[in-house]
């Protein structure tokens, strides 16, 4: 790749902290600091700090902003109250997934959408080309924010130490405006790890102050910097899908298990609705399933899945679960075989047994 990597506002801080930098979605990002397993356990048992500034943000503003977003997404935005967030898919007209998003209703006329780093340009173009007419504007705010995620059972004590907001009063999938380390931020109780935690949207000019404030506030809790490596193992254990692996332009929300955020019974004729209705009535051809390898080894992306002599599917995410200490994965299995309790995964020419599951591999105790 001739083009140079983009950097996040805190890149120098990551390098100084010993972050091992790698290219991800065109950005130079820390994949780990001390080690993926150690960072993983820190988030499960204490608290970790992630820089997720590579994520993009798009804001819709104006009297018709709500309707304009509703037209683009599979989930029902009318259910949101001010300050509430929602997970959703955004689809092509043919029902293929453009991206998965977190949508915030900041106000009756202000909707903020957090999009995946790799899809920033694609999403904005899609939103533009499917833009309904109305009284609103659409603004790409991706370069305005740094984003830090504080994740783990002790996240709340770290955040509370440096904010004037009552962090405990922010319910899961809600957000509040407030000062963090003296900087005006949006503090969201969301995450991609399966633990309690916060994602803080910070104006770029305040990124360093918030980062330093969090690092200091995190000392009593034993907070550690965490990289994208454990972000992936944490999300996989929690069975959170990854765009580009478990969802692509060629997968639809029903086969991806995103029926719960695909609201077909509402009046809005959102982009992709009629295609998804047609898929629903004819039935999906494959379904995403969790996989747990029954022998030593590691499931990886693109490994074929077998039932008997039939090749029935393909792994879309795979790896090692530091919590379970065995390999887990996600993969699409042809609908005729998707209820098989055991399958085989071909690893370097050998077929290794795996069990299937519809549930997350890990669920936190509340």
């Amino acid at each position, binding site marked *: 790749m001739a083009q140079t990597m983009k950097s996040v506002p805190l890149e120098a801080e990551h390098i100084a902290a010993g972050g091992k930098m790698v290219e991800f979605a065109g950005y130079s990002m820390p994949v780990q600091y001390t*080690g993926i397993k150690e960072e993983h356990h820190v988030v499960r048992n204490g608290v970790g700090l992630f820089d997720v500034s590579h994520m993009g943000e798009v804001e819709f503003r104006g009297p018709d902003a709500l309707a304009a977003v509703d037209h683009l997404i599979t989930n029902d935005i009318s259910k949101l109250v001010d300050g509430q967030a929602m997970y959703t898919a955004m689809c092509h007209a043919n029902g293929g997934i453009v991206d998965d998003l977190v949508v915030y209703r900041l106000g009756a006329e202000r909707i903020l959408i957090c999009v995946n780093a790799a899809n920033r340009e694609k999403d904005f173009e899609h939103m533009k080309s499917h833009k309904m007419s109305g009284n609103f504007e659409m603004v790409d705010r991706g370069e305005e924010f740094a984003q830090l995620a504080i994740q783990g059972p002790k996240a709340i004590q770290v955040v509370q130490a440096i904010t004037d907001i009552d962090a405990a009063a922010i319910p899961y999938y809600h957000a509040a405006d407030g000062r963090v380390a003296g900087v005006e931020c949006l503090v969201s109780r969301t995450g991609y790890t399966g633990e309690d935690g916060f994602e803080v949207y910070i104006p770029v000019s305040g990124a360093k102050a918030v980062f330093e404030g969090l690092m200091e506030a995190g000392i009593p809790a034993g907070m550690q910097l965490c990289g994208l490596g454990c972000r992936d193992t944490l999300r996989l254990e929690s069975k959170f899908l990854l765009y580009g692996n478990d969802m692509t332009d060629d997968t639809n929300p029903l086969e991806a298990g995103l029926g719960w955020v695909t609201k077909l019974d509402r009046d809005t004729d959102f982009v992709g609705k009629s295609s998804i209705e047609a898929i629903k009535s004819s039935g999906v051809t494959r379904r995403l399933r969790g996989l747990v390898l029954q022998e030593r080894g590691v499931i990886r992306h693109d490994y074929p899945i077998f039932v008997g002599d039939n090749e029935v599917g393909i792994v879309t995410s795979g*790896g090692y679960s530091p919590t379970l200490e065995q390999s887990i994965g996600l993969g699409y299995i042809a609908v005729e075989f998707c209820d098989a309790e055991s399958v085989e995964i071909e690893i370097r020419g050998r077929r290794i047994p795996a069990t299937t599951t519809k549930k997350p591999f890990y669920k936190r105790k509340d």
Partner: protein
Amino acid sequence: MQQIPADLKYTKDHEWVRDEGDGVVTIGITHYAQEALGDIVYVELPAPGNSVEAHGECCVVESVKAVSDVYSPVSGEIIETNHNLDSSPDLVNETPYTDGWMMKIKLSDVSELDGLLDAEGYMIFLTP
């Protein structure tokens, strides 16, 4: 600072070789290699009795991040593998030159050892 024991030989693929005498060598991967791989969670060892070629794949190492081949530094017959790695693959991270050894090979051509890097040569190879 790289750990490069003076009594071992090395390859540009980041394997190390210890000459045990009697035409037998022990091999493993270097400190540099284990650090680049990150947390190792599985080592797929070959069966003793198999023969290997110099530069041929002899073993697979899975880290949390990725899967990587280990290439045999020498040709010969695998006479023993380190079964402690079955239950503790992280030995390769913790002590790559000692408890993290991978296999012993009976050399088919002792002169292949002369083509390997010594500690100084490997250090120069690693120096950017």
